[in-house]
């Protein structure tokens, strides 16, 4: 994430609105909603890193598979949401940040207000259930 004296990185148009973003979610961020009969993710799962870097995601269309997110993270789940929601409904920039083990890694850059986190939560579907 850009610091106070840094400029926010430009939105990367090569991550198109039609793409899907995956986010690895700690088992502590899910609850089972008995009424809906499904797992529900908390808005707390859509924060930036405490070290100041922006929220990590993986571009689904470019990932080798969802396993790349879960390797070494037993019990974790994966939430999936549209790039369009992050960019247009939440006013975030999408920026590529490839990692050696995950070239499809990206960041969702921008202020994560409560309203933004709620929109991301509501737009998310459960791709991998936590265990």
């Amino acid at each position, binding site marked *: 994430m850009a610091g106070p004296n840094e400029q926010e990185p430009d939105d990367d148009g090569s991550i198109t609105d039609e793409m899907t973003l995956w986010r690895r979610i*700690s088992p502590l*961020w899910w609850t089972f909603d008995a009424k809906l009969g499904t797992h*529900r993710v908390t*808005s*707390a799962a859509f924060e930036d*890193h*405490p070290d100041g870097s922006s929220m990590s995601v993986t571009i689904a269309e470019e990932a080798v598979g969802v396993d790349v997110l879960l390797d070494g993270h037993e019990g974790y789940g994966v939430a999936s949401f549209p790039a369009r929601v992050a960019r247009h409904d939440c006013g975030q920039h999408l920026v590529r940040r490839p990692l050696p083990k995950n070239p499809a890694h990206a960041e969702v850059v921008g202020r994560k207000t*409560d309203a933004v986190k709620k929109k991301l939560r509501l737009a998310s579907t459960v791709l991998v259930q936590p265990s």
Partner: protein
Amino acid sequence: MSLTADGMLRDGSHTLAETLLQPGPMVSRERVLLTDPIRATLALPDGWLELSIRRPEVAWIYPVLARLQHLGSLQANWDSHGGRRISGDAIVTSLHVLGAVMEDQTPSPWIVPRSDGGLQLEWHEGARDLELLIRPDNRVALYFSDDSGAEEQSESAVGPSQTPMIRDFLSRVTG
């Protein structure tokens, strides 16, 4: 010790009643009433918290304490995204807030850890949401939204002045 046919507990040659009635050494004991508060200790990341729990205990108290105990034991990077350890202050503040706003029949909150070391107390009913963000520095942020899409939020230091407002929002979600 065995249970006899006449329904009495027997230990050797004496029934339990006989044993209890036998004079024993005079020992001074603290008088404890069944209505006395229950004393409990909650382990925090940076110490201990002594608790006094009123009887009869409200339904939400033990699930909440168990959850806080668990969250307080998390190590750094518990979320795999660099999350900080949950602060003892956030746990104590959460208990203060819950003690002030919860009624006996209020549903237990969903308590989730925050990457910054704080906690989030949540109640959801349909499209109505109340989230209390307990920050590591003891500030509390409130976020409420309802079926109409109306949203309200505020942030302030923890204090009694917040209690009526939080109670009001809580009743709008759970009432």
